[in-house]
Structure formats: structure tokens, C-alpha cells
């Protein structure tokens, strides 16, 4: 018997394609399967700071929604993703990438973390998510690809580790050019290293002021909490410019305590955070 189209060919749902209501509604009819796979690069040898942060954010979001998933490392995860960005999930016949796309996909199945939020709070949450993407993510990209010390010691080795010589150099060069072009259009290319750390500190200050002394940004856990946790935890455990990031994060104890809370929820190692938390 010939397979139906949806069975033979996975539906690709990127965050940008999410407006295609028909595709989403198709997915909405089915319950959350047990065999959902989250694809990302190899964690120990390959993954870089920004990808690790985004992957952690998606994992935190899925755990906050109590949804089952299995992490599958793939050397070519980036090439497998419909938008060229990791992580992405394969849920039944659907392939969905990036946190925003996955959040929409999950929401359309009737599972949401923001049902108690009013419109103004939802707008506020979206704005803070833009802040994390606009500052923390760009800073991570900058440190990994523009800072020569980090690039030579870590990024080029890790990114090229899955390719044989001379392909590793070609892949590194291609990726670095793409990242530089990206940073140029967002006016980050001409920044100096000090300015980048200052931007990170300003973003942390803004997040800390918004969090205030609350447990989560909007009372209950939302996708913003998942995103902020993903980036802050990655900065605490990164192998590039760790000291600089730790010195910045030390100044924001409420944010570290907040990360520690989500860490425990996710059964993650909290040792790195405990070192930074003042007793």
C-alpha cells in the first residue's frame, strides 16, 4: 500500500513558516508523541556557545511543559534544520526549528505556558525575548567568531572537529563569513570586545531589573524563562572567555539564583552556579 504524503515526507515547520495555519492545524490534531527527537550538534566535541544556549532553552521549555523528548546529537544537525539553525525537533511528521517555532507548534496543540498572561504581559514577554536574541545571542556569536583568541583556541577546533582536513578549514571559513555578515547587518561587527561585554552587562541589568525579586519573570514559568535560563546557564559554563562572563554574572545575584532554581527543575549540574553565588 502506498504511503500517504504526510507519512513519506516530513512537514517542515520553521518559525517563519508558522503562519501557515493549515500545516499547524494538521499537527494540532495529534497528541504529543513519545518519540519526539531534539536534534543538536555533539555536546562535548562540537556544539558552540550560541547553539548550546538555544538548545538548552528549547529543552527547558519542553520540560516546563512536561513534554517528553530525546536529545539526538548529529554532526550535521545545522544542515538538517529547515532554517539552518539548531536545535530542531522532529515530532511525528513535523520538523520544527528554533524556540519561537517550537513554542508556536506546542501552543497549537493546546499546551501553553502563557494562558494566564494578559495581552500586555504577552507583549512585554515578546519584547524581552527580542532583547535576549538581540543582545545575548549576538554577543555569543561575536565572542565565538570575532574574538581571535576564542576563535583560534575553541571555535575553529570545535566547529571543524567533525570535518576531515581540508574541509574543516573551508567550513570554518564559510561559517565565519556568514556570521560576520550577520553581525555587520545588526551593527555588531564594528564593536570592540569591551563594548560587547558592556552590552552583555546592560542586558543582564535590564533582565535583573525586570525580574526584581520574583521567582519567574511573569509569576509562573513562561518561554521567556526558558530562553533566559538557556543563555545565562551557557554563559556560566562556556569554555570561551569564561572569566569575563563570570565576572559580569557575579554582579547579578538574583539572576544566578533564578538560574539555580530552573537548574534544579531540569536536574542540571548547579556546581558552576554555586561557585558564583555569594554565600
Amino acid at each position, binding site marked *: 500500500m502506498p504511503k500517504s504524503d504526510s507519512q513519506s515526507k516530513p512537514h517542515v515547520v520553521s518559525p517563519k513558516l508558522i*503562519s501557515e495555519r493549515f500545516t499547524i492545524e494538521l499537527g494540532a490534531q495529534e497528541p504529543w508523541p513519545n518519540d519526539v527527537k531534539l536534534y543538536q550538534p555533539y555536546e562535548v566535541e562540537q556544539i558552540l556557545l550560541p547553539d548550546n544556549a538555544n538548545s538548552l532553552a528549547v529543552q527547558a521549555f519542553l520540560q516546563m511543559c512536561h513534554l517528553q523528548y530525546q536529545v539526538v546529537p548529529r554532526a550535521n544537525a545545522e544542515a538538517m534544520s529547515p532554517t*539552518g539553525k539548531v536545535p530542531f525537533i522532529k515530532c511525528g511528521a513535523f520538523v520544527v526549528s528554533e524556540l519561537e517555532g517550537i513554542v508556536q507548534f506546542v501552543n497549537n496543540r493546546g499546551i501553553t505556558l502563557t494562558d494566564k498572561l494578559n495581552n500586555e504581559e504577552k507583549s512585554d514577554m515578546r519584547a524581552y525575548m*527580542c*532583547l535576549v*536574541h538581540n543582545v545575548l545571542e549576538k554577543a555569543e556569536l561575536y565572542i565565538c567568531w570575532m574574538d581571535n583568541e576564542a576563535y583560534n583556541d575553541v571555535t575553529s577546533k570545535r566547529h571543524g572537529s567533525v570535518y576531515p582536513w581540508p574541509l574543516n578549514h573551508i567550513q570554518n571559513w564559510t561559517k565565519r563569513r556568514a556570521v560576520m555578515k550577520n553581525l555587520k547587518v545588526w551593527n555588531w561587527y564594528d564593536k570592540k570586545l569591551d563594548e560587547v561585554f558592556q552590552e552583555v552587562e*546592560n542586558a543582564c541589568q*535590564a533582565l535583573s531589573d525586570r525580574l526584581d525579586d520574583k521567582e519567574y519573570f511573569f509569576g509562573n514559568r513562561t518561554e521567556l524563562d526558558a530562553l533566559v535560563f538557556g543563555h545565562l546557564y551557557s554563559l556560566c559554563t562556556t569554555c570561551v572567555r569564561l572569566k569575563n562572563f563570570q565576572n559580569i554574572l557575579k554582579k547579578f545575584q538574583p539572576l544566578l539564583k533564578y538560574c539555580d532554581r530552573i537548574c534544579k527543575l531540569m536536574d542540571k549540574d548547579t556546581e558552576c552556579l554555586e561557585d558564583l553565588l555569594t554565600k
Partner: protein
Amino acid sequence: MSCEITLENIECSNSGNSFNIVFPLNKAQIMYNKFMKYQLNVVPGDYGLVSLDPECTQSILYTRIAKVPCDIKLLSSYRVCTFYSAPSFVNGKEVFNGYDAISSHLRSIQYNLDFGLSSKQCSETMALSSMILQKLRPLLEFIMWVDKRNNEELINPWHMKVLRIPFNYYYTKGKRESATDLIEAIYDFEDNPEIIKDYLIKAATDCLTSLSSRLGKDDYFFKKSPTSLDILVYGYVSPFLKLPLNSVDITNMIKSLWPNLETFVKRIDAKYLGDLIDNERFLIRESRTQQNDDEVSYSAIIILSLSAVSLVLTFAVNKGFIKL
């Protein structure tokens, strides 16, 4: 000159991507600044906009709200476009290019619009600014410089007419390339411009909905007076309302779905930019007539020199003085 730094006069400022602690200058410095004239170089405006470049619009509005004593020079003259880019702010020998650099310099010389905002409001400013830059800016860049119909029928011919040869070519080429790079960086997996436009409109709709609900019925985002956030919103919303765009119906969308944003733009126009908008076409004409003599002479010199050189060369080749 030294700064008086006390706990009372440390102020928190925040605009766009930057968030700095600024130490106000002492009285002598303030007096000195009052008498000092600055120069702001911008792309000219039209269609009710003070400038067709959103960063220039923001720079003009900042100087107007903060009452910075500066001369606004238009990029439509050879003298300005030869030496400066737009927007650029000249303070003595220092030149600051781009709105971010201009606003942070103005904050450092006492003109700080975010003074008095609480830390929460500064945090909110930073988040909303990020959202505008990520969701609204790409649509405006796309409509102005990437969308074929708008660019070929409206934006490009306007710039070619208003700016001077050959700077109009450099300027439009640069703007088109940077807009294309921006769209490619966001949607590198998609080639169809119609689909890209749909994604961009959806993102912009989300952003405008958030801004409209945040503004509510207030005059400005932080109620009493305009801050850097109001300037950013005006810079990226007013072009959608005023440019006679061909292929996108976002003007009517804003007017019908978010009328408070239209009122907000009109309020700022009336209060801070009324004279510039009313006299805007006049400004272009005046600035052209002022420099008309110089411009004619520059062009005439170049044409005459080229003609003379080519005549001499033709004569020399014909007479056999130069053998080719």
C-alpha cells in the same frame, strides 16, 4: 574640564542597544555647550517626513526634543556629501556617525532624554528597542530598498533626483546592499520575495500590536515627556504612515488597527517637527539655491577641464605629437 560626580547626579540612560551611566557636566561645561553650535548632516525629507532615512529622522527629533543648538545640513549639497555621511553629528573636530553614536554622544554632553526614568523603565526601553530593531526595521528596509516596485518607482528615483551625482549612486547602492544583506541574514533559507514580505509583515504586525497596547491612551511611552524610546518608535513608524508605498498596504493597517500610533506620530510632528515638515520642501530648495553657485561652478569646472583635456589630446593625436 572636570566633572562633578556625586551620587545625586549619576543618571541612568538607555537608548537602543546602549545603556550607560552618564555623569552630568559641571556648570561651566554646560554654559560652554550652550553657546557652541553643532552640525547635523542628514538625508533630506519629503512626503511629510523630515528625512527619508529613519536614523536621520531619529537624530533630528533627538536634537529637537533635547533642544540641542545645531545646524541641520542636508546631504543634497556637494559640500556636505563629500565630507560627511548621514546621519552624522559634528562637534568641533569630532564627527559621530550613525544614530547610536550620535545619541550616546549627546547623552554624554548633558542632552539626556532618559534622565529620570526608573531602572524598570530603562529595562523596558531596552527590551522594546530590541523588538523594534528586530521586527520593524527589517520590514522598512525591505520595502524601501529590496522590494522592486517601491524601490524602482519611488525610493531610488527620489534619491537619484535629490542627492548629487555621483554620491546618489554610491548612497543608493550602499543602502540597497545593506538592506539585502539584512534580509538574507534573517531569511537565508527563503528566496521568494513575496513569502519574505509575508514573514516580515507578520513580525511587524506583532511588534506594532505590542507597541500600541503599551502606549495605550498616553501621550508618550513614559507618560509625561518623550524619551529615546518615543524617538525610536517615531523613526520606524512614521515612514510607514507617510511614504506613498505601492506594494504594501501597511499604512491603512496602522491607521485602522493601531490608531493611537498614528495619533502619536501626529502629536510629535505638531509639537517638535511642525516647522521642519511645513518648510521641508522649502528647506531643500533653499539649501540648493544657497549652494547653487558653488555647485554650478564645481560641475562647470569638471566638465570644462575634461573637455579641455580631451580637445588637447585629440589635437595632439591628430597632429602626430602623440603616437598611439
